[in-house]
């Protein structure tokens, strides 16, 4: 009512002005910073469609303008300015670039909303807030930046990626990786994007938001948007850095000196120790300082109707273990073209990425696993014999010189990834936009592996150590996608805002691959480059595979709000996939979102004027997880190893059943309720959001034993499991200082996530529990440390409850009868095992800070993960006193020696608290004042440190151990096991320069 009066008053005031004569207005629009002309700036008379755009020199001219008219100057990426014409005939405008404005829009899938209007749990992280320094993978840029988005990496191998889990997404047979959408293209491998080319990450977390991606939404969605060109003269950006990587923490094994001292002090017991006379720190022999060099060059520009941006990036990573390297070159080209009065917008994108990898083996305890071999190797064994050949000896099974392994084994990959996309946006009538998006992805890789034939003297005898093995493999994957949408946006009566969307999506994936291998090379120099070189080639040594998958979706969404106060959004997707069984190929994925922005209510606007945003949100939705292998629903028959014809003894190929069919196979279903609050106060100087969610994941796909008595195969893929997740997330963003010279922006995130297993079986196939998280080492074979158990959290460690050591030097455990038992007496019985810890954190926190003082900038990103247990199998193995004289050991082994022997079971003694606080990144830069060097628009030099420090009580080399869930067998998920296979974490120091011309 009050507004209406004001409106009337204005109308009356303006009425007389209509009488004034009309005039012509012209002027020049420039960029405030630098003063360069801005072409393509929209200049319109407010409240009309009359207007013009600036020409290439930034000039515009408007005729028939009334003094009362208000000119609105708008341009993407700049603050919109409104100027009343008055009596001026020349109006020059300097546009101020607004980095904030891009933040104001949040991608929600097939559309965007303004941040203040979002109704789901969506987060945006923009370029200025991203982690800096040396990024092995672009996703590292948002580590600790978004509440509920856990970005972790076990170890520091440049060739292994980060694990990303949104709200603890996890499947048993299904994967937990989120869906990536890059510039509208689904399924792009984001490691093919240079971090320098990224402008923002947008994350959808709740099922009500991700339902628009239906059966692919349950793990959350991450949108990556890359930079595009702007109208104007060509802009050249060049970024380069040099980084040095060093091992952050070594395993505390004995030196040759301490080993010898210990043996000498215990001569009565270890008199039989044979000292080979060396003094070697084997970790130092396999570790090095790694150098990373990165160069990124981008050129962008355009006119009113078309823009372009091209970039090329090369990064050469040297891992800190000798022989592990990665070199990646990526190129991108993005073009946009507007035509037909700007009604048609065409976007084109192309990217190519070429990556070469040198791998080393370190995952297990085999005869080529570098970490295990260097950890176990006695410091008193020399590297070389006196004649310069490698020293080999036969202390225990699988005991080989790791330096020889690094020198001899070749393990390489060459991967090429291409992306092409073409998009059309056509404004059919005002408010109605049709979009068609076509894309094609192709990822091809080839791998070469060669272990030369190797014999050496052991004792006095020349002994064969490796017979030699080689293989080559090709893996190809392609995806074609077609998506089309129609969006209609309209505001009725100024207060009813409506956006509707209808769409269709078609995705087809194809893959195939080939592998050939052989053993016993006649020439080590030919290696696996000439497979004919292998004398031992058997049936089954040539393998190939081929398959495909189709996913189709039809979807619709309606979003309505009344005057930015009351919001209602509903969406539904009908999704189908060829990976599901015939009886369940299609499913519905609906959702509803409600929000109420109290800040726009009069009672707040009038009384509490420092509140800019206070929005309550509630949502409910269903999304699915179809991240599963293809063809699991089929009863499949195929070659399965080889056997012999019993009559002739000749080898034949076995045809056998892989698994039983299940025509009911479907997606894991994720039903989620989300409650949220967004707020902004003091002119949005402090803003943030709080979320609570509760998820029920039902019909989780897993693999079950079937009565083998009557089935072809022993297993079936069946939707049987159920889990309950809930969590709380908070984000607080503050512009703590905001003066001209000094600015301090700070972002704090906090999240909890609890995952409870409700049931493992689908009723039909009973399953009381599933043992997972197997560890293995000499003497430890097939020992599970974790159990998936109904009514317990996922990641529950399960085993024996340590209760001390007996007087006769045996491990004691407390059984479920509360009695103390000898571990050896109960070790093979399940009766006395119990939950002994949990691998999942209680909460995670991130705290990012950006400071600028004049031309100096400083940022620091902390991350804490608290309350998770780690099973330290590395300590169990190398803290084993039974190893003394045969292998190198930790101090732990010396402490236990004479007190108790090795333990070969899942034992709570080896469970440790893994809580940590890390300073992930600190970055310090200086930007040269503008125009100091002619022709250079911007020049910044910086230095950056990644993984500055880790505060933790954890004894192992790094407490960031697999939070995202590993799988050793189908249908399993385990967490948090440190098993001598963690590539060392590194501290990286980077020096870099950003130049803009």
């Amino acid at each position: 009512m009050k507004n209406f009066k004001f409106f009337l008053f204005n109308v009356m005031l303006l009425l007389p002005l209509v009488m004034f004569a009309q005039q012509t207005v012209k002027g020049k629009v420039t960029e405030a910073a630098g003063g360069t002309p801005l072409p393509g700036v929209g200049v319109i008379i407010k409240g009309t469609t009359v207007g013009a755009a600036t020409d290439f020199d930034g000039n515009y001219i408007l005729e028939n303008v009334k003094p009362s008219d208000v000119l609105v100057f708008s341009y993407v990426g700049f603050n919109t300015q409104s100027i009343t014409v008055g009596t001026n005939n020349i109006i020059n405008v300097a546009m101020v670039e607004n980095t904030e404005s891009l933040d104001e829009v949040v991608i929600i899938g097939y559309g965007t909303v303004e941040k203040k209007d979002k109704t789901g749990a969506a987060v945006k992280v923009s370029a200025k807030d991203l982690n800096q320094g040396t990024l092995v993978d672009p996703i590292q840029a948002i580590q600790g930046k978004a509440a509920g988005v856990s970005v972790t990496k076990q170890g520091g191998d440049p060739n292994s990626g980060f694990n990303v889990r949104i709200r603890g997404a996890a499947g048993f047979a299904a994967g937990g990786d989120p869906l990536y959408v890059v510039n509208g293209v689904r399924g792009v491998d984001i490691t093919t994007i240079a971090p320098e080319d990224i402008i923002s990450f947008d994350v959808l977390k709740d099922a009500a938001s991700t339902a628009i991606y239906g059966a692919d939404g349950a793990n959350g969605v991450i949108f990556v948007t890359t930079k595009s060109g702007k109208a104007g003269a060509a802009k050249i950006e060049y970024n380069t850095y040099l980084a040095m990587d060093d091992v952050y923490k070594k395993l505390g094994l004995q030196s040759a000196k301490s080993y010898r001292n210990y043996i000498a002090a215990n001569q009565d017991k270890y008199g039989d120790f044979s000292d080979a006379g060396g003094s070697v720190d084997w970790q130092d022999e396999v570790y090095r300082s790694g150098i990373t060099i990165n160069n990124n060059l981008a050129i962008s520009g355009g006119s009113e109707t078309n823009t372009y941006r091209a970039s090329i990036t090369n990064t050469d990573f040297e891992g800190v273990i000798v022989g592990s390297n990665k070199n990646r070159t990526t190129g991108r080209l993005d073009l946009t073209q507007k035509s037909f009065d700007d009604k048609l917008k065409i976007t084109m994108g192309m990217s190519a990425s070429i990556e070469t990898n040198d791998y080393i083996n370190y995952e297990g305890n085999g005869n080529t696993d570098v970490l295990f071999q260097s950890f176990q190797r006695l410091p008193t064994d020399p590297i070389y014999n006196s004649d310069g050949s490698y020293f080999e000896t036969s202390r225990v099974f699988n005991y080989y010189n790791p330096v020889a392994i690094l020198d001899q084994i070749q393990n390489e990959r060459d991967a090429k990834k291409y992306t092409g996309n073409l998009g059309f946006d056509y404004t059919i009538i005002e408010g109605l936009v049709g979009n068609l998006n076509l894309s094609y992805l192709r990822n091809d890789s080839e791998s070469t592996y060669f272990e030369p034939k190797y014999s050496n003297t052991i004792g006095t005898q020349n002994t064969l150590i490796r017979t030699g093995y080689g293989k080559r493999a090709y893996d190809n994957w392609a995806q074609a996608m077609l998506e089309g949408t129609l969006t209609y946006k309209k505001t009725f009566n100024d207060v009813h805002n409506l956006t509707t969307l209808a769409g269709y999506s078609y995705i087809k994936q194809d893959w195939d691959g080939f592998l050939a291998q052989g053993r016993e090379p006649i020439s080590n120099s030919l290696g696996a480059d000439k497979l004919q070189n292998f004398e031992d080639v058997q049936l089954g040594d040539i393998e190939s595979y081929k398959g495909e998958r189709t996913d189709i979706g039809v979807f619709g969404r309606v979003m309505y709000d009344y005057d930015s106060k009351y919001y209602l959004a509903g969406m539904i997707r009908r999704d189908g996939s060829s990976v599901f069984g015939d009886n369940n190929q299609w499913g519905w994925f609906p959702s509803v979102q409600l929000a109420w922005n109290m800040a726009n209510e009069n009672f707040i606007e009038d009384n509490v004027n420092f509140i800019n945003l206070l929005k309550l949100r509630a949502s409910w939705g269903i999304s699915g997880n179809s991240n599963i292998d293809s063809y699991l629903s089929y009863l499949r028959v195929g070659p399965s190893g080889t056997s012999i014809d019993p009559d002739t003894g000749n080898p034949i190929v076995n045809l056998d059943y892989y698994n039983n069919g299940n025509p009911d196979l479907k997606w894991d279903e994720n039903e989620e309720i989300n409650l949220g609050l967004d707020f902004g106060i003091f002119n949005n100087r402090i803003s943030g959001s709080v979320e609570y969610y509760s998820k029920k994941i039902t019909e989780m796909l897993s693999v079950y034993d079937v009565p083998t008595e009557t089935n072809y195969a022993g297993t079936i893929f069946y939707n049987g499991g159920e889990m309950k997740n809930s969590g709380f997330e908070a984000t607080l963003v503050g512009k703590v200082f905001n003066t001209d010279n000094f600015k301090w922006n700070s972002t704090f995130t906090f999240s909890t996530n609890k995952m409870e297993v409700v049931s493992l079986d689908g009723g039909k196939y009973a399953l009381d529990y599933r043992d997972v998280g197997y560890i293995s080492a000499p003497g430890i074979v097939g020992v599970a440390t974790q159990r998936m158990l109904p009514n317990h959290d996922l990641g529950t460690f399960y085993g024996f409850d340590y209760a001390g050591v007996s007087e006769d030097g045996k491990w004691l455990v407390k059984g479920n009868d509360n009695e103390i038992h000898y571990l050896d007496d109960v070790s093979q019985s399940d009766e006395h095992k119990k939950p002994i810890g949990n691998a999942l954190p209680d909460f995670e926190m991130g705290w990012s800070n950006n400071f600028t003082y004049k031309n100096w900038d400083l940022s620091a990103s902390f991350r804490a993960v608290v309350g998770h247990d780690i099973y330290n199998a590395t300590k169990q193995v190398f803290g084993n006193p039974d190893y003394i004289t045969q292998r190198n050991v930790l101090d732990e082994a010396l402490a236990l020696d004479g007190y108790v022997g090795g333990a070969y079971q899942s034992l709570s003694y080896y469970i440790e608290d893994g809580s940590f606080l890390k300073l992930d990144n600190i970055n310090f830069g200086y930007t040269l004042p503008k125009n100091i060097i002619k022709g250079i628009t911007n020049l910044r030099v910086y230095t950056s440190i990644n993984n500055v420090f880790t505060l933790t009580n954890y004894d192992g080399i790094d407490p960031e151990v697999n939070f995202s869930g590993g799988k050793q067998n189908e249908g399993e998920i385990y967490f948090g096991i440190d098993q001598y296979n963690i590539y060392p974490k590194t501290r990286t120091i980077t020096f870099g320069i950003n130049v803009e011309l």
Partner: protein
Amino acid sequence: MKYIYKIAIVLIASFTLYNCTDLESDVSDFIPGDSYPENSEQAIRVANPVFTKTQSMLDGGGWWFLQEVTSDEAVAPTRGADWDDGGKWRVLHQHTWGNTTEAVNQLWGLIYDAVPRANRAIELLEVNAENPEVAKVLAQTIVARAYYYYLAIDNYGDVPFPRTFTNAEEFPHRTPRAEVFQTIVQDILDNIDKLPTPNPGVASSSINKGTAYALLAKLYINAEVYTGTPMWSETIDACNNVISLGYSLEGNPLTPFLTDNGASKENIYTIAYDENKFTGFNFHMRTLHYLSQQTFKMSVQPWNGFAILESTYNLFGSSDLRAKGLLVGQQYAKDGSEIVDNVAGVNLILTPNVPALLMDANTYSLNQIRNSGVRVAKWEIKEGAKGNLSNDFALFRLADILLMKAEAQVRLNGNGAGDALVNEIKLRAKAPTTGNYSLQDILNERGRELLWEGTRRQDLIRFGKFNESWWEKNTSANTRNIFPVPQFAINANENLLPQNPGY
């Protein structure tokens, strides 16, 4: 302008209508189950896995571990940090295994991997049974199934007993041991005539009349254990039937175990292992000392694990040729030089005595941990041996049949009734002959002749000795004479309950 609009609409429409809702996904790299077998050649091949599932019996199939490590002739001691493996070997030795013990799971898995394939193959083959080749394969498949059910009742007692595939109960119940026994005996008798006649001296591992009679003899000799009613004279008849097929003892007791033993006239039913093409025979890896690699110039390093009990070693007299298959005392490299164990700082001398089942590094010296226990090289380990041997492993062998016949004669007619047959075995081995052999003498002879051949558990049960105490093992309850139904099988099928008594 308008036409652009039209083109756009047509474009969108044509893209969206094309394959709009067709979730196609071509099948490329496997055969869908409902179109298999694709032809009659494949139908015969359906039966092949039934015959070759025996491949895993000595390792991942668990059978050998259950027959030997539970007995008084094989031991897998914990050697310092090695071979503890969570105690899975110790529970076998000490008769404290449970329904999740690995080998107990493995053997059940092996048997019931083979059974449904046999049932399926039988159904497919019956359709064309007038074809003589098909009829032969059909009879072989039925007898092979009888063999797996023999393993099932021998190890697990009452077992699920489906004999069809298509109409089988989805969650089958267990059938009493005696009833399974009767039915499979009948299956063998019904099919024996359709089986090929063996050709001793020609390498073959396929099922023939010799296999069938030997299997009958095994069933009959254990009939008392399985059904409560002994069948000694039937045992003798079945043994006679085997003997009449032309098998003969080799001159040297170790000849049947040579690398190239496929054509030995002594072997009746074998697993025809090959180091490359049909792998799974890795006793040498399990038993040999790391440094014995140098004795045989092996291409891989063995694991230094399994040994025989000292009491078993002491069964062998000094003249016994069969003891040449045992490694004891100083070990030598191929070139004749003494092997020195640098790590323990001593010559590699293998001792008959194993100080304990669990040798922890605190209590035992490196020499004891690494070098104790007599190792078995009864199956020839050829120069340059790989991780698997090419020797065939005999599941049924003439010497076993002769001793079974002797045993049945003694059981029917008293001590001395089997002397001729026992002496045939003893004389070949240059072992002293005393005559008037008792059942205990025959059990001891079986121990020497059939060492590690997978008969020991069954023999001890039949002779009533399985529950006695021996080195590092207390007396055990007679419920230990059968294994429990594995928990994983019960998880998949609750109709397998109730569990065997004592578990």
